[in-house]
Every structure is written in structure tokens, then in C-alpha cells.
């Protein structure tokens, strides 16, 4: 049986073996997901907490009203109403619970390493949900594979399932979504199914489809350095496909209550990876070689954490970037297009004029440089803007015309100033004037 899912932009996904599904919006509220992360972690809830909830009281977690997703060793620092994020920082001492535990306490304690999120709405999990089926997405996408056995040695997928099951009086049945019948992942999943004899475990094989190779799946403008686009797209497409597959099963009455999807992945290649806060990066970057460099955050603003292995990922960091860092110096490197190494060099003629006026955001030595209209920024812009003309308009304060050319659509990724051969801080200027324009509006 074949069916397809249409998404924005006229493209569609094709599935084999599963019935057609309803529109995403209706199901979205019931689909929840859990993503495997490490033992230390933090939460962000998009939805403001209820007013009756008092986070500072020590017995808070014994109250029935608290969200299930709140970890016990975390202190609530600030709580802004109507804000998108509530940030937490870990307390110095971890409080431990003694004595007999209720199922909910077991959940809180046992699933310390699970991040609970609804994939679509990005909200925390509702404590009153009693799922009858657990969906685990183990999609193999290139260049990633989901390593369920070896990467998280302490908290493997099996442990996650076991601790999850202890919460509920009636244990839910489990569906593992896979896309490769013969691979390593499939055999690992079969092993897991054997080790859970009391629970019904289904292996659901979907069509073997890799987003990067498939023309029917929409991708960003493919000009990110380091194959960034491939990795990013793999991520969200992996989420989307597994979500839709599980949603389709619910919509046809196979499962009545909301399912929960567990996913996880292991990184080896260069790219930008979204990770959850308070994770220690070595959990993710175990397989990275010495010639690679780990940068916390983006390439333009991040910190080099290759040598600092215990550096946690802070709540305001979205992820880590991994790039090549070869130690050899390459002959005639400028001829080869591409970005291999981080480096800087002066513009040599400016050495003769030490007293000329220096611009802070000019070249590396502070010299002011001109835009040569090479158009690299327009080619790389993922949103399809023309950063060069936007920058020129913003510099001359013609913000109204800039907004007509899409100033507000700028996603502030910083790739334009990254590729600029004259090293002009395009994104900084654009961002400043965008904030100015928003204030004027």
C-alpha cells in the first residue's frame, strides 16, 4: 500500500506499507516525543507554567500538578510571563529521594537523561498522559546512523525503555521505526526486542529513503560550507518522517492514546549539530578525530572547546560546530574553493601604513575594506535575500527600502559575513538596523 504526504512548497513524501494520514495540525497536539540525551541535562518549556505551581517549595515534585518533565535537581531562576523560554541552571547539590517511590517519582528519577518534548509544539509533556504505545524512531540517515547500542553505554535505548515502562501500571507496547532492513540498526533493534520478553515490540520498516539523495524532498539552497545543509536537513526530515509515520498509525485507530517517540543519533562528520543544553559535548563527539575541531555555537561567535572536554553546553547555545583542523599547511590554498581550515592573514600592503584609520569590523588588522560586489553573500543566503544590497541600504539608513527587500526575513545565520572575501560584517550591520526598524514600527 502506498500513500504520500504533501508538505509546504508542493513537494511530497511517499510512504510504502502504511495507510494515508490526516493533516498534521490535527494530530500535532497529541504527538509527543522523547529524545535521548545524556545524564546531565536541562529543560526549556515553551509554555509558561501554571500560576498555582510553586517551584521553590521543596515538596513541589510530590504535588500532582507539576509537569512530569521538570527534573528534580534543577532550580527555577527566572520566570517571565508570556516569554518563550524559562531557563534553569543546576543547583550545586543534587537532592536525592529516599524511601518508596511513586511511579511519577520513578519517572522523574529514572528518566533524568530523557528530554521530553512535543516535536511540533515544543511543549513539555503532559503528566496525565497514559500512552498505550511507545514509538522509537531509529532512522538511519546518511551521513548519520542512530547508534542505539554503543554510544550511550550507560543510558542505552534499552535502559530508556525499561525506566519508561516502570512509570505506568500497564506497560505500553513498543514500535521501533526503521528504514533499513539489513543494516546494523535493524539487528540491534532485534536484540533489544529479545531482551524485553514481557512487552510486545514491533519492528516497523519504512521505505529506505535518504533525504540527501532524494529529489522529492525539499532542501535548503545547497551552498552551506562543510555540507551543513545535508546534516541539518537530515535532522528535521528524520524527525518529520518518523512523526508522520507514527501519526498515520494513530489516525487509523491502531493506537488510541498518544504515542511517544524516542530518537537519538551519533555524530562523526563535520557540520552543525543541535544538542540539548547541559549536555557534555564528549558524549556526542566521542568519535571525532584529533584533526577535527569542536566549536561551541556557530562559526562566527563560538568558542573552541576541543581541549576542554568537560565544558557543558549552556542553555543559550543551540549546538556545536565541527570542522576540519589539519595541521599541515596547504600549498596554494586559495585556489581550492572550499573551507578547510580556520586561519587569518593580514593584507600585506597595509603593513606600511601603521597610522591609518582602523575600522573595528574591517579586516583582521582593522583595515577598512570595500565591497567588491562578488555576490557570494547572495548565493549563500538560506532565506534568499540579497545581503549585499541590504547592507548598503542599512549603512545609509534607508531602512524602509531595506524592509521592502526583506530585511525582516533575515534569519541572522551570519553566513553572509562568513563568506565575504572582504571580511565585512554584513550580518552585524543588518541585525542592528533590523532591530532599529522593529522599534520604529
Amino acid at each position: 500500500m502506498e500513500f504520500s504526504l504533501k508538505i509546504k512548497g508542493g513537494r511530497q513524501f511517499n510512504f510504502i506499507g502504511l495507510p494515508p494520514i490526516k493533516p498534521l495540525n490535527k494530530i500535532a497536539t497529541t504527538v509527543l516525543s522523547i529524545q535521548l540525551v545524556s545524564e546531565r541535562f536541562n529543560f526549556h518549556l515553551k509554555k509558561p507554567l501554571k500560576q498555582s505551581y510553586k517551584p521553590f517549595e521543596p515538596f513541589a515534585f510530590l504535588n500532582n500538578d507539576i509537569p512530569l518533565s521538570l527534573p528534580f535537581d534543577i532550580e527555577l531562576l527566572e520566570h517571565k510571563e508570556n516569554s518563550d523560554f524559562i531557563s534553569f541552571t543546576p543547583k550545586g547539590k543534587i537532592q536525592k529521594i529516599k524511601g518508596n517511590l511513586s511511579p511519577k517519582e520513578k519517572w522523574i528519577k529514572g528518566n533524568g537523561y530523557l528530554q521530553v518534548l512535543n516535536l511540533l509544539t515544543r511543549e513539555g509533556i503532559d503528566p496525565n498522559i497514559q500512552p498505550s504505545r511507545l514509538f522509537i524512531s531509529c532512522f538511519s540517515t546518511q551521513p548519520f546512523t542512530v547508534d542505539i547500542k554503543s554510544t550511550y553505554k550507560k543510558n542505552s535505548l534499552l535502559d530508556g525503555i525499561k525506566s519508561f515502562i516502570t512509570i505506568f501500571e500497564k506497560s505500553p507496547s513498543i514500535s521501533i521505526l526503521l528504514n533499513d532492513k539489513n543494516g546494523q540498526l535493524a539487528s540491534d533493534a532485534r536484540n533489544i526486542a529479545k531482551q524485553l520478553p514481557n512487552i510486545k515490540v514491533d519492528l516497523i520498516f519504512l521505505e529506505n529513503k535518504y533525504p540527501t539523495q532524494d529529489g522529492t524532498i525539499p532542501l535548503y539552497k545547497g551552498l552551506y560550507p562543510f555540507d551543513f545543509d545535508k546534516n541539518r536537513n537530515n535532522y528535521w526530515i528524520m524527525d518529520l518522517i518518523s512523526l508522520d509515520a507514527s501519526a498515520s498509525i494513530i489516525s487509523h485507530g491502531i493506537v488510541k492514546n498518544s504515542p511517544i517517540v524516542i530518537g537519538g543519533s551519533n555524530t562523526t562528520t563535520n557540520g552543525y549539530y543541535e544538542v540539548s543544553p547541559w549536555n557534555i559535548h564528549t558524549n556526542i563527539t566521542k568519535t571525532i578525530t584529533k584533526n577535527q575541531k569542536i566549536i561551541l555555537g556557530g562559526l562566527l561567535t563560538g568558542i573552541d572547546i576541543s581541549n576542554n572536554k568537560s565544558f557543558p553546553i549552556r542553555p543559550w547555545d543551540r549546538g556545536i560546530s565541527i570542522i576540519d583542523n589539519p595541521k599541515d599547511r596547504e600549498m596554494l590554498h586559495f585556489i581550492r574553493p572550499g573551507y578547510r581550515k580556520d586561519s587569518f592573514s593580514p593584507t600585506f600592503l597595509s603593513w606600511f601604513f601603521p597610522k591609518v584609520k582602523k575600522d573595528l569590523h574591517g579586516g583582521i588588522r582593522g583595515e577598512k575594506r570595500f565591497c567588491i560586489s562578488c555576490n557570494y553573500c547572495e548565493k549563500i543566503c538560506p532565506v534568499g535575500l540579497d545581503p549585499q544590497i541590504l547592507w548598503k541600504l542599512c549603512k545609509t539608513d534607508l531602512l524602509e527600502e531595506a524592509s521592502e527587500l526583506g530585511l525582516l526575513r533575515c534569519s541572522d545565520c551570519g553566513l553572509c559575513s562568513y563568506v565575504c572575501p572582504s571580511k565585512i560584517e554584513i550580518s552585524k550591520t543588518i541585525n542592528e538596523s533590523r532591530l532599529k526598524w522593529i522599534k520604529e514600527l
Partner: protein
Amino acid sequence: VKIVRNFLDKINKKTQKGPLKYVNPLIEAVNTALFDPDINTSNAPHIRDANNNKRYIFSVVIAMMPILLLATWFYGLRVPLMVVFAYGVGAVVETIFAYHRKEAVNEGFLVTGMLFVLIFPVTTPLWIFAIAIIFGTIFGKEVFGGVGNNPFNPALVGRIFAMLSWPAQVSPSTYITPQSRLFDYVSTNADAVTTASPLSILKTGGANSIFDNVPLYELFWGPKAGAIGEISSFLIIIGGIYLILIKIINWRIPLAILVSSGITAFALQILNPQLHGNPLFHILSGGVLLGAFFMATDPVSSPDTAGGKWIYGIFIGVLIIVIRGFSPLLEGVMFSILLMNIFSPLIDEIFRHFRKRKERSYG
């Protein structure tokens, strides 16, 4: 390679202090031009510099080197002398203006200076050459605010200024026959035999005389009389394709120029086969290839939008053939490129108008 690298590193370290301090920038420039810089960042802007202005400039210079070497073989030692002379004069002008504006000296002249050499005949007197460089750099570039703000290609401004002011010294009638004279020094056209360039044969003798005197394969392979850079069509095409492959120049402009000039020439040939040459002759003779690959693709003075590049290239191609066919001038490349340079902001503005409409549809 390792030996060279270690040698450069050693010299670089030694000259950082002491009396040789002033030579250090040049050595470091050579060092960082040949190899990656050896310093890795540990703070915020990671990996900024693999794509640098240097990459632009050195790649274009590398693409032009074979042409200059071949020109040296056929025109003698005056060619390297002219390169050195152009760089010298250009550096003085650039430095004066940079100092006046209190800004850094830009490396852009390394390309412009070499372009100056490519578009002048060997027999140009050096004083005319110097005046052309000074005029072109000042009124083509510096008056408008330096590199990045120039509406015209400075080399073409200088060339046209020289051609209109001293036609006897730099016009196509002074082109000498290329023959192997590696160690000769030809300073005036009295030293050598002048010949008619393919285009002047067309102009004087009509289309039939081309078939007898200038076979097409010779236009492609052989050396032909003309400016220094026009010596070999083959090497220009190789250099242009190299630049397109490493993404220094955009492929749209050369393709548009070549195709549109070919189509226009074909149309004119159908109208009057006695007067007008065939398309391939027009493309291979004169400065069409040089203009298409090295002049019109200048990132500053050409349009930025992709559609604008097509229109810019098509108009240049049409204008070249129209000027060649219907005017007393032999060559139309310089004028048509300069004319379209004026229009390139307008073309961009039209395409941005469409972009604005598209933005409105986003809401």
C-alpha cells in the same frame, strides 16, 4: 614543497625584528599567498580567511600568466618591462590616494595593472602608457571612491583615453607581426614589420579577403597580430575556463557575450555576406574573448543579479558586432563594455524591482 615552506618561515621569523623589519610584510605576503597561514584562531570568528580577496587577485593573475609568457616569446622583453612599469606607476597612484583617504592600500591593482598590459600594443611609448594608467586609475576608479565603488573598468578607461588622444601611437595600425623574438627588445614599430590585424583585413578587403588571408584554425591556434593579450585565443579560453571552474568569475557573462555576438554576426552575415565576417571569425579575432573573460566579468562594474548578468552580456555581445560592422572603428569591445558598465546599476535596479514584488507576496 616542505623545503620552500621551512625556508619562508625561517626568513619570516628573522625579519620580524631589527633593521629588516620593513621587508617582512613582503615576505609574509609571499608566505601566506603560497600556503595557509599557520595561525589558528581560538576565539570567535572561526575560519574567516580561507576565502580572501587574495584568492581573487592571485587566481586572475595566474590565469593571465600564460598569455603574458607567450606574448614575451613573440614580442620580446618589452612585455615584462611593461608589467613592471604598470605596477610601478599604479602603485604610486594607489598609494597617494590611499594615504589621502587614510585607508589601506588594496591589492586590486595587481589585476588592473596586468589588464593594462594586456590591452595595449607592444609598441606603445612608455609615456603614453604611464599617462593612460594614471588617467584610468584616477578617473576610472579613485574619483569614485576606490576599489569597490568604481562604475567603470579602469583599464578600459585608460585604453580608450590613450586611443582617442594618440591614435597614431596606439591604434591597430601599429600592431607588429608576432614572431619568435624572445631576447629582442622592440620599442617602436620602426624596429619591426607592422601587419594588418584580422579585423582590419575584414574592414579593408571585405568578407572574401578573410578566407584567403586568415584561416579560422590559425585564429584559434596561431599567434595573431593585435594587443599583447590578444595573442592567443586558446590560452584566453583556457584561462577563462579555469577562472569559471574555481568560481572566481561568473559563467553567465562570457557565455552571454559569446552567444549573442555570434548570433548578431550571423544575422549580419545573412543580410550582407560581402561586408560582414562569419560568427566564428568575429568571436576569435580581436578582443572579444579577452573582453568576455577578463574585462566584462569584473565583479565591481558588472551587475550583481543573475538575470542582470545575462542582459549585460547579451547587450555587450550585440554592441560589439554592431560597432564593428557599422562604424569606422575597427574594434568595438572596449566601447561596448564601457557603455554597459554605465547601465549595470540600472539593470540591477530593474531586477531588484522584481525582487521587491516577490517580497511583498511573502506578506
